[in-house]
C-alpha cells in the first residue's frame, strides 16, 4: 500500500487513461473485432445463435482425442523446456564468460526461424516424424523465452538474500527452492505461460515434425477454416482453445502473485559471477546442451547452405524465373516491416505494461492482462480470416494494405514486450517513487523520472525480441492477404516450394541469412540498452 499513494495520485489523471486506452484500442480494433467477426459467422450465421454445431463437435470422439493430445503434449513440452532452460537462464544471466552476449543471441535465433527451415534442419539430422521430434523442436524454439524472461530478472537479483539463506543453514537446493524460486516466480510464471501457449497452439512443428498422424486443435482449426471453410466447427474449436488459453493465463497469474518484494534490484553488470571451481562444470554442461540442442541444427542449416558452394548465396542476388525481384531485396522489406512492427509493439505493449503495473490487482487490470496475452492463444488463421470480414469497409479497408503485416507482427510481439517489461517495472522499489515525490516531483514527473527510464531500458530489450519476432514471423504473414512485397521467411517458403538444387541451396542460404540477421538485430539492440551498459 505504501508505494501506491504516489502512483494513485497520478493514476487519477489523464495519463493513466491514455496508457490504458492505447493497448485497449489497438487490440480491440486489430484483434478482438476480427476474431469476434469470424466467430459470429461460425456460431450465428443467420444472426441467431446456433448451438447445434457445438453439440456435434462435443460428440465427436476424434476431436476429443485431438484436444487431449494438444493438452498433454503442451504440458510435457513445457515441463521439459523449463527443466532444460532454467539452468541455462541462470548461467547466461549470471556467469561472466567470454561470448556470453553471443550465446544469448544464439539461443534467441531458433525462436524466430520459420518452421519449414527448422524442419529441414532437424530432418537432415535424422530427427523426424515422431513425438520426440515435436518435443525437441518445442524445446529448441522456446528455450529463448525462458532465458529471456527469467534471465532478465535473474540478472538483477541481489544475491544477499540467497547468501542469507545459505548462512542460515539452508542447502543449495533448499535455498533455490525457498528463496530463489519465489523471487523469480513472476518471471517463471510468465515464461511458463508463454511456453505453454506456444506449445498448445503449435502449428508448423506439429505438421512438419509430427507428420500427418498428429493433430492439435490449432492444426484442426486451420483445416476447418482455410481448407474446408467449415466455420461452425472452427468457431467451436476456437472457443475451446480460448477457454484453455484463459485457464492457462489464470494459472500463470496466480503463480506470479502480486508484487515481488525486492528491496533492491542490482545492476546486471555488477551482479555477475566469475566462472571458477564448480561453476566451470555448470557452465560446461549448459553450453553443451545449448550446443547440442540449438547449435547443431543451426550449424546443419549453415552447412546445407554451402552444399552448392557459394552458388546458393550468389543466387540470392539474381532474379530467378517467377520472382519479381531478387530474393535479397526481401531483406530490406523484412527490415522495414520489423522496424514498424517493433515500434508499434513497444509503444502499445509498453503502454500496457506501464498501465498493468499500476493496476494489476484490480479486475480491470486482469482484463487488460488477458487481452494483451490473447493473441498468443488464438489461431493465426482465425485472426487472418477475421481481418477479411472485419476490415471490408472504409475507414478500415486495411485488408490489402501493406500496413496489415507489421500490425499482425506487432500483435504477436506485444505479449512479449509486456512480459519482459512487467517484471522489471513491478520490481521498482516504491520508495524510489516516494523519494522523487518528496523531492518535489509531481506525480506525472515521478513517472517520467523513475518508471519511464527504467521501463525504457526493459523496453529496449523487448524491442530486440519484437524485431526478431517480426523478422522471422511466417504463420500470421501467410494467413493474411498480402501485397506482393515479400518478407524473407516468405521468400524461403517460396524457394522451398520449388524443385531444383539451386532453389534448395538458395532457400538454405536465405535461411542462414535470416539467422544472422536475427542474431545481429538482437545483439545490436542489446548493445543499445544503455550508453554505459550499466544499470539495468
Amino acid at each position: 500500500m505504501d508505494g501506491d499513494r504516489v502512483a494513485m495520485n497520478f493514476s487519477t489523471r489523464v495519463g493513466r487513461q491514455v496508457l490504458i486506452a492505447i493497448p485497449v484500442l489497438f487490440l480491440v480494433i486489430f484483434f478482438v473485432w476480427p476474431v469476434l467477426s469470424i466467430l459470429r459467422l461460425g456460431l450465428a450465421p443467420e444472426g441467431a445463435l446456433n448451438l447445434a454445431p457445438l453439440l456435434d463437435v462435443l460428440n465427436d470422439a476424434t476431436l476429443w482425442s485431438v484436444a487431449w493430445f494438444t493438452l498433454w503434449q503442451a504440458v510435457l513440452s513445457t515441463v521439459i523446456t523449463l527443466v532444460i532452460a532454467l539452468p541455462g537462464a541462470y548461467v547466461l544471466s549470471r556467469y561472466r564468460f567470454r561470448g556470453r552476449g553471443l550465446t544469448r543471441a544464439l539461443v534467441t535465433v531458433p525462436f524466430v526461424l520459420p518452421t519449414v527451415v527448422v524442419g529441414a534442419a532437424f530432418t537432415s539430422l535424422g530427427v523426424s516424424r515422431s513425438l520426440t521430434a515435436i518435443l525437441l523442436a518445442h524445446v529448441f524454439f522456446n528455450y529463448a523465452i525462458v532465458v529471456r524472461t527469467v534471465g532478465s530478472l535473474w540478472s538483477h537479483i541481489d544475491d544477499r538474500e540467497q547468501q542469507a539463506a545459505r548462512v542460515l543453514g539452508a542447502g543449495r537446493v533448499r535455498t533455490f527452492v525457498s528463496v530463489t524460486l519465489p523471487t523469480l516466480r513472476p518471471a517463471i510464471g510468465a515464461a511458463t505461460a508463454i511456453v505453454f501457449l506456444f506449445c498448445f497452439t503449435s502449428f508448423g512443428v506439429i505438421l512438419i515434425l509430427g507428420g500427418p498422424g498428429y493433430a492439435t486443435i490449432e492444426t484442426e482449426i486451420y483445416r476447418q477454416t482455410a481448407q474446408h471453410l467449415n466455420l461452425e466447427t472452427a468457431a467451436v474449436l476456437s472457443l475451446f482453445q480460448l477457454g484453455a488459453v484463459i485457464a492457462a493465463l489464470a494459472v500463470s497469474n496466480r503463480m506470479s502473485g502480486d508484487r515481488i518484494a525486492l528491496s533492491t534490484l542490482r545492476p546486471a553488470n555488477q551482479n555477475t559471477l566469475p566462472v571458477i571451481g564448480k561453476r566451470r562444470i555448470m557452465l560446461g554442461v549448459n553450453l553443451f546442451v545449448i550446443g547440442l540442442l540449438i547449435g547443431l541444427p543451426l550449424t546443419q542449416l549453415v552447412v546445407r547452405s554451402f552444399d552448392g558452394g557459394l552458388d546458393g548465396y550468389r543466387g540470392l542476388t539474381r532474379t530467378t524465373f517467377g520472382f519479381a525481384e531478387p530474393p535479397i531485396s526481401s531483406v530490406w522489406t523484412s527490415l522495414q516491416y520489423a522496424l514498424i512492427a517493433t515500434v508499434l509493439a513497444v509503444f502499445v505493449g509498453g503502454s500496457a505494461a506501464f498501465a498493468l503495473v499500476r493496476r494489476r490487482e484490480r479486475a480491470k487490470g486482469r482484463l487488460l492482462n488477458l487481452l494483451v496475452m490473447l493473441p498468443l492463444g488464438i489461431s493465426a488463421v482465425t485472426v487472418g480470416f477475421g481481418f477479411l470480414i472485419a476490415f471490408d469497409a472504409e475507414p478500415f479497408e486495411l485488408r490489402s494494405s501493406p500496413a496489415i503485416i507489421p500490425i499482425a507482427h506487432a500483435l504477436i510481439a506485444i505479449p512479449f514486450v509486456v512480459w519482459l517489461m512487467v517484471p522489471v517495472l513491478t520490481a521498482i522499489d516504491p520508495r524510489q517513487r516516494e523519494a522523487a515525490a518528496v523531492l518535489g516531483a509531481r506525480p506525472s514527473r515521478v513517472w517520467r523520472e523513475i518508471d519511464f527510464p527504467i521501463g525504457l531500458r526493459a523496453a529496449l530489450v523487448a524491442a530486440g525480441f519484437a524485431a526478431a519476432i517480426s523478422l522471422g514471423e511466417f504463420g500470421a504473414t501467410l494467413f493474411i492477404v498480402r501485397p506482393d512485397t515479400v518478407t524473407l521467411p516468405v521468400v524461403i517458403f517460396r524457394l522451398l516450394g520449388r524443385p531444383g538444387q539451386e532453389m534448395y541451396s538458395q532457400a538454405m542460404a536465405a535461411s542462414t541469412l535470416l539467422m544472422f540477421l536475427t542474431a545481429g538485430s538482437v545483439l545490436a539492440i542489446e548493445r543499445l540498452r544503455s550508453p554505459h551498459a550499466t544499470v539495468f
Partner: protein
Amino acid sequence: MLDINGLSVHYGDTRVLSDISLRIDQAQIVCVLGPSGSGKSTLLRTIAGLETPTTGTVSWDGSDMTKTPVHKRRFGLMFQDHALFAHRDVIGNVSFGLRMLGHSQDVVESRARTALDRVGLSGFEQRHVHELSGGEQQRVALARSIAPEPRLLMLDEPFGSLDRELRERLVGELHDVLRSVGIATLFVTHDQDEAFALADKVVLLRDGTVEQQGTPQEVWLHPETEAAAHFLGFSTFVDATVDNDVIKFPWGSQPFSGPRPTHPIRVAWRPDGLHFNPEGLIIGVVSASTFRRDHFLVSVTTIHGTMSIRSGEPLAAGTAVQITPDMGAALILPA
C-alpha cells in the same frame, strides 16, 4: 515552523498513530525516539504527505498542509534504506530535487556540487550508486535531501544499517551539517545515543502515542512513565509506599528528599544506580554476568524481582550478593 495537532493514522482497522501533537521550531533538531513498530516511520511519512491522516492536522507556519500533495510540501525525507535512484549516478541523485525546482542547469549543477561537498563526497559525481559503500550511500542520500534546501528535513533511521564505528563518526558529521545548514530537522531512531547526541528536543513514541517530550536532559533524567523509563535504560523496578520523608521498600525504609510523591509509587534505577555492598539490605543470587565493553552487567535474582547492576568485574552465576540502592539515582514514578 511545523505544527502537528491531534494526528491519527489508521491502516484499515489498525491504529498506527494516535493523537500526536508536536512542534518543531526554526533550526531546531527534534528526535523521535522509540522502539521498532512504535509508528516512527509512519509519523514521518504522514508529515511528508505519503500517508493520509485519519484525523488531525499538519501545518507549517500556521497554514494547514494536511491536503497539500507530497511534492508541494518542500519537506525533505531521507529514507531508512536511502532509496537512492539506482538508474542515476551520484550527481543525478543529488541534483534531482534541484531540477524539480526548475533551476537552470548551472544552478542545479553548482548547488548539487555544494551539497556533495558538504557531505564530503566531492569527486564522486559520476559514480554509480551501487559502487558506493554504505556510508557513502548514506551521505549521498543526505546530500540529495539537503540540496533543494527543504524547509523541514526528515531523517528515517539514517544510520540504521551502518556499523557502529561508522555510525558514531557520521552522527558527528551529521550534527555539523545540520547545524551549518540550519534547517528544522525531524529525525527518528531507536538508538538513544544518536538521539541524545543530536537533538534539541526528544520525543518518546510508543505504540503510536507520544509518551513524553522535552529536552534531552529532561527526558533522560526524568522519564515520566514506566515504559519511558524502561526504554531509556531503567532496568530495575520496585513497588514502594511513601510515609512522610521516608520511602518504605520491602527491605526497609529509606529517607528521601525532594518533591513529595503520592503513594503508592514505583521506584526505578539504571544499572549504575545499584551497588554491591556487603551490608546491603537486598539479598540475591547472581544469575548471569554480561560483558559490556567497559563494564559488566550483572543480573541478580531477588525476592523483589530481577535487578541489573553495573559492575567492574564479572560475578559467577550462583554467587550470593547484597545490594544497596543509590537513592540519588532513583526515579520515582506513580505506580
